[in-house]
């Protein structure tokens, strides 16, 4: 995966997190975000963001980081 693609996926995942940040806790929000990624993202995209999170998760918002960590 190229740097541009990684940046796009990070932006997309963060967007999902921001739009679900109204839940009572980061834990609850992360569940919703993780579920969204499982329902709507192709496995290759999920693998790519997991790989990014393992290498360098600095651009991921806390909810996103938590959600990605919950992906199977």
């Amino acid at each position: 995966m190229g740097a541009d693609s990684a940046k796009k996926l990070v932006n997309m995942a963060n967007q999902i997190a921001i739009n679900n940040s109204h839940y009572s806790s980061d834990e609850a929000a992360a569940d919703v975000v993780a579920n969204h990624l499982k329902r709507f993202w192709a496995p290759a995209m999920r693998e790519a963001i997991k790989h990014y999170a393992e290498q360098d998760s600095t651009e991921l918002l806390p909810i996103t980081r938590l959600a990605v960590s919950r992906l199977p």
Partner: protein
Amino acid sequence: MLSYFDPKKDLGTPAKESATQVSVQIDGRDILVPEGTSVLRAASLVGIDIPKLCATDSLEAFGSCRLCAVAIEGRRGFPASCTTPVEEGMSVTTQTPQLAKLRRNIMELYISDHPLDCLTCSANGDCELQDMAGAVGLREVRYGFAGANHLEQPKDTSNPYFSFDASKCIVCSRCVRACEETQGTFALTVEKRGFDAKISVGSAEDFISSDCVSCGACVQACPTATLIEKRVEEHGTPDRSIVTTCAYCGVGCSFEAQMKGNEVIRMVPFKGGAANQGHACVKGRFAFGYATHKDRIKAPMIRDAIDQPWRTVSWDEAITFAAERFKAIQAQHGRNSIGGITSSRCTNEETYLVQKLIRAAFGNNNTDTCARVCHSPTGFGLKATLGESAGTQTFDSVRFADAILVIGANPTDAHPVFGSQLRRRLREGADLIVADPRKIDLLKTPHLSSAVHLPLRPGTNVALINALAHVVITEGLEDRAFITERCDTAAFEQWEAFIKQSSNSPEALADVTGVAPEQVREAARRFAQAANGAIYYGLGVTEHSQGSTMVMGIANLALATGNIGREGVGVNPLRGQNNVQGSCDMGSFPHEFPGYQHVGDDAVRTRFEALWGVPLDAEPGLRIPNMFDAAINGEFKGMYVQGEDIAQSDPDTQHVEAALRSLDCLVVQDIFLNETAKFAHVLLPGSTFLEKDGTFTNAERRINRVRKVMPPLAGKEDWQVTMALANALGYPMNYGHPSEIMDEIAQLTPTFTGVSYNKLEQLGSIQWPCNEQYPEGTPIMHEMEFPIGKARFAITTFVPTEERSTRRYPLLLTTGRILSQYNVGAQTRRTDNQIWHHEDRLELHPSDAQVRGIKDGDWVGISSRAGETVLRALISERMQPGVVYTTFHHPESGANVITTDASDWATNCPEYKVTAVQVVPVSAPSDWQASYSRFDIAQQSLLPEKDGLPNV
């Protein structure tokens, strides 16, 4: 087809609705009709056709010709039966010697000032004046023809599709009334009085320079040859007709394709069409010439690389070539390295087959559709809140709406037939609230009683809908009974606490939206306090970074005010293309099988696997933008695109072009060499809606039949091409007719289990869900319960888009479409509609133009972080300062070179409606345009020669 009335019969005056039935006797026959029904209509209903000229059942009675005079027991004289309502116990006689003489005298006067050229007249055999002369037994004209007359009146041929021959006009006013009542444009009038009276296009010189929108309602209403289609003048009257469905916008108008042999002479809107009820627009009625345009691709073509000439080959060779390439790619790069795109312009059956091919023959879920770039947030948002990914109403429901909220939609341009219905209701007194950055034409509706315009800044929809809902809740305007009974309590309480926050008040959000708080409060009160409040929305809602959130916000507002589940209310997405609803229903999205059933649901997948006979992937596939990214990364190598032009319609053109260039095999199935096909290796000829059988589903979930009226120019209907490709890939498909495909859809889709071609023939059309519970379909959804039980309010926090105006890009660009052109223009650009819009222009406010030294018509460069293009300027007060607008109908405009990769958080629907740009005067095309021009010329030259002439 069967229907509840004979749509071909003209009953003289419109039907009336009343709970009171009135008993009358006409020529000794008894009939019971609703109170308010005219004597003319009542007579027609018992099979007595009273002669008439100025009356027709699509228009209110006018009573000018007096030909329909009758005798009524106990009344003096001979009243016009069209303007006389029935009364209890009334006894009517329609034929007496006196009436016969009166009618002959009337006809004699008409004919004394009418050309006697029936045998050479273009309406010969299809003329009501001619019919009535026969009906009344006119045998002489005692006045002669030498007196003052109108026989030398000039003919207006300025409109490309119809002519106006004033010498044949009987001034019955049907055209004027059709323009007012049916279309709502008020472009025509009767000028002067008495003998000097004539039909006029207002202060304009001719039709083309008038306010006329060329809907053709006047042509259809004209009882003579005064207003007539030029094609009828040129080709004669048609000899057969077939009812089918329009292939333009999501209104889904029914038409009679009136034919001579295999040639369409004219398209006449079908009175029995439940969506359009006999009305049409300039596209559907007139712009069908593209079907036989010289640019049609009539034979399959292949090439190894996009810089090579196309080779015309047999269907077998082309299909084998495509299948072998796809198989080779998968062998080298893996099962997920190919995918495809279904079309919202193709039929349900064709769309179903393409996604089936991808899932079953490609073995992955890399299927997507152009709804990705328009209404995918509608599916997400409505499913989350109401439990079903579809609008809730019929179009007809607007007749009962008291307050109409239109958000991010321009119905008079993009959904013109519904726009006319809407205007009719507004003239009757309904309140109009428009939330749109532009002052759309709906706000200029003649005789509009009351309107509020909320001119919000692009990108602030969610802030505005929250502010509206805040007013409803904090001022106690909500419908507590509905909320308690029909909505999830916990979700409502959370939402209520959220929406009550002062940060959601109109005052707090005024700086964000740019809308005055008192206007927002006024709009919220009007909507909430109306007996029936209906919401209509378009791509101005969905094509945002918070498109899905906004759809949920709209559902919240409808639920909070109790405006769901009956006539006159509801959430109504206005779908852009003819089969957007259908393409979504048919499982085009990568995560859903037909009927919005998730691929990860084991029980669902097992049913599909059992019927399709192959194991299916349980994971979502790639969406269109994901496919592009994967292609550029070298992970995605092959694509099958049916009936879409992603190179022109999708955002960030240069990114799309780079992705398409990266593919090893691009198979495009289309009727023309469209922009995408210029990057293709296989070009499979498509068939137009006139050349195939199938169904389209319109924006009100109405499944309408598409009927073949001519053979496919290249020999195959689109579903047959997909079938051949599946078979060549080793996955057997063997359907004999699209009805068999629909039968399979019904087996697998819970909302379609009751749908069949037989039932469509019986009912005319069906609104899904159609199943055991709703055997004849569901006009209004959620009347008693939601598919999810109780509706769920959703928290809709406003998150500003990252695409903001800056010092470098100080203006915000929105894009859209106009009346005469359709989407990427592939169809309408190949018709005479070009006369109205031959180029895309950049619309901007006079103040933005002035500070930049831009005059109307100047060439201007528009730049964004994605790219640059050049258009001519159109200076317009319709825009608000700081906002510019353009259309994307012409590929050389490069409108999507400027739009960016920003998209909706939930669905990746592109944010077409907000792009930060700068606009400056320029004198030359952009680099992209120069490059496009070179590429286009090169690609045209690679086509096989036609008739010995090169294609340059």
